[in-house]
């Protein structure tokens, strides 16, 4: 049975962010990607059977405020340190997708004391010379959806759905904030790699083999930068393994979580 998620608004330092909570168990903090977290994805519904799942919408996304101070990913990381303190999160398994994976790393290099582990799905944040990335800003909205998935049937289903005006507004807001955080350099921080060695948490990196936004060649390169991390590449899968291959993703996640120190 699907877990019930409550919706609340948390104010931290004058900035209002939405927070969905559901399930019971150890804390799992989900950091969403560029597309936002307007809805609770099925894999998070699933994980709510074992975890207390927290899904905030980042400042500048969805129903959250757009603070004037938000200029870059560093601002976002420091905000999250305040946020984790404000809601007194402890021992969280932080799960970050794409832009959210980048954010998870930016937070963790600064202060990982409220985290117990990291799971990163196709995270942006670093640059590897010679690996060609896609440019989601150059793509039309339709191409953007097609390029998210390996299985084009999923893209077709999404394209057939007509978003409401409210959803369109949220998507536009998310695109504007994504550009602010990641236009230049394109979705990475040239200084992040220098400090990834500070991440001492158990870390699992999961990548879709056919990721057209960030190629799977990033997985081993990132794994080299985070001591004690492991990576898995899921075949027949695009940029969102948690959505395109939820069973494989959940299996990897649970296997990794089972090995974490209690």
């Amino acid at each position: 049975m699907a877990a019930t998620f409550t919706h609340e608004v948390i104010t931290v330092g004058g900035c209002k962010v939405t927070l969905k909570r559901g399930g019971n168990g150890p804390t799992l903090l989900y950091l969403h990607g560029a597309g936002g977290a307007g809805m609770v994805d099925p894999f998070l519904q699933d994980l709510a059977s074992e975890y207390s799942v927290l899904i905030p919408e980042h400042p500048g996304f969805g129903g959250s405020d757009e603070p004037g101070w938000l200029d870059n990913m560093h601002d976002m990381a420091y905000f999250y340190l305040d946020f984790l303190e404000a809601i007194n999160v402890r021992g969280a398994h932080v799960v970050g997708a794409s832009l959210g994976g980048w954010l998870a790393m930016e937070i963790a290099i600064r202060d990982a004391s409220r985290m117990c582990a990291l799971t990163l799905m196709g995270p942006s944040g670093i640059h590897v010379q010679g690996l060609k990335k896609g440019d989601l800003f150059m793509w039309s909205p339709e191409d953007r959806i097609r390029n998210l998935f390996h299985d084009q049937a999923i893209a077709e289903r999404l394209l057939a759905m007509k978003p409401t005006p409210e959803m369109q507004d949220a998507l536009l807001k998310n695109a504007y904030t994504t550009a602010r955080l990641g236009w230049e350099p394109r979705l990475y921080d040239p200084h992040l790699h220098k400090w990834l060695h500070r991440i001492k948490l158990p870390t699992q990196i999961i990548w879709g083999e056919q990721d057209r936004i960030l190629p799977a060649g990033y997985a081993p390169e990132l794994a080299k930068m985070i001591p004690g991390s492991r990576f898995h590449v899921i075949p027949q899968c695009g940029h969102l393994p948690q959505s395109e291959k939820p069973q494989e993703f959940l299996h990897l996640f649970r296997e990794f979580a089972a090995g974490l120190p209690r």
Partner: protein
Amino acid sequence: MNIMLFHLMPYADLDLEATKDYPTPWVTLPNSFYDPKKGHLLYNRYLDELEYGEELGFDGVCVNEHHQTAYGIMPSPIVTASALARRTTKAKIAILGSALPLRSNPLTVAEEHAMIDNITGGRLISGFVRGIGAEYFSSNNNPTFSHERFHEAHDLIIRAWSEPGPFEFAGKHYHINYVNVWPRPYQQPHPPVWIPSQGSRETIEFAAHPSRKYTYLQTYSPFKVMQRYLQMYRDTAKGFGYTATPKQLGWLVPIYVGDTDESAMAEAEKHYEAFRERFLHIPFDMLLPPGYTSRDSYKGLLARRDSMEAKISARECNELGLFVCGTAKTVKEKLIGYVKEAGLGNILALLQFGTLPADLTKRNMERFAEGVMPDLRKAAREFHGDTA
């Protein structure tokens, strides 16, 4: 009335057949389609055309800035303006404009414009723009900071020109410990500033502000759209407590003058359509990267996307005022009508467009100068009195 000759300097030799399957001539069209030998000839032809404009009696010649595109091969209007500075003696030289947010140090604009102003003894008109959306792809500048950087760079340049240096400038995007531009501009306190725009309330409020009173130029737009924005400028000025003069209002429009209305259209049609349908073709997501406009403006443009992208023939454009084409008499009457209806004090005539070749461009310029300009000036003087 200022009658200015505007040039976009398109790469007119573009192989339209070989490039027809590329989505746009902007940003991503491989530069292997650019032939430097042809480019050499084009640059010199275009500079000759602008120099000839002075001889024909235009009040000024205008250049602009676009990057990584066959639409215009002037990534630096400073270079073309500099080339013109020593080959003209009377005409104003208008840089319309320098794309301020794309510069990592806007003082370079203050320096370069001041140099041209000194060399020409005060013939420079400075124009400031943000660059179009596509330029945020080609420069990789963050479009969400475009407005902030434009305003900050503008303030820095105007202060550098008009306040004694050295002084410190500490902004959000630009930090200069010693602002102390040598040379100071020839025109004091600084060259006139013109603001070209496709039309926005924010830009008009900025340009019309009593501390600035910058000339606002509506670029390539239907007559009705131009008229609406110029009225918005006058209303905004009134709101600020003053009356805008025609000098503060301008329009950039492609014009072609022929012997008969039919022959004019027959000569210009395919070259105009190459300009409109090919050189100016920019995919929506490249034209409007996130943050380049406010979200409300973006939604407004998205709602009008179909009409923005509709194919309109040169003949239809001629009806809308997106093009003014016909005999000298036809063109003159139309322009005089537009001047009176919109209260224009500046016409920027685009007399070369798209693939229009040298011989037709030259004849167009001569017919315009002889058959349109004198009566247009006279009519504008009678209509505006001393205010223009």
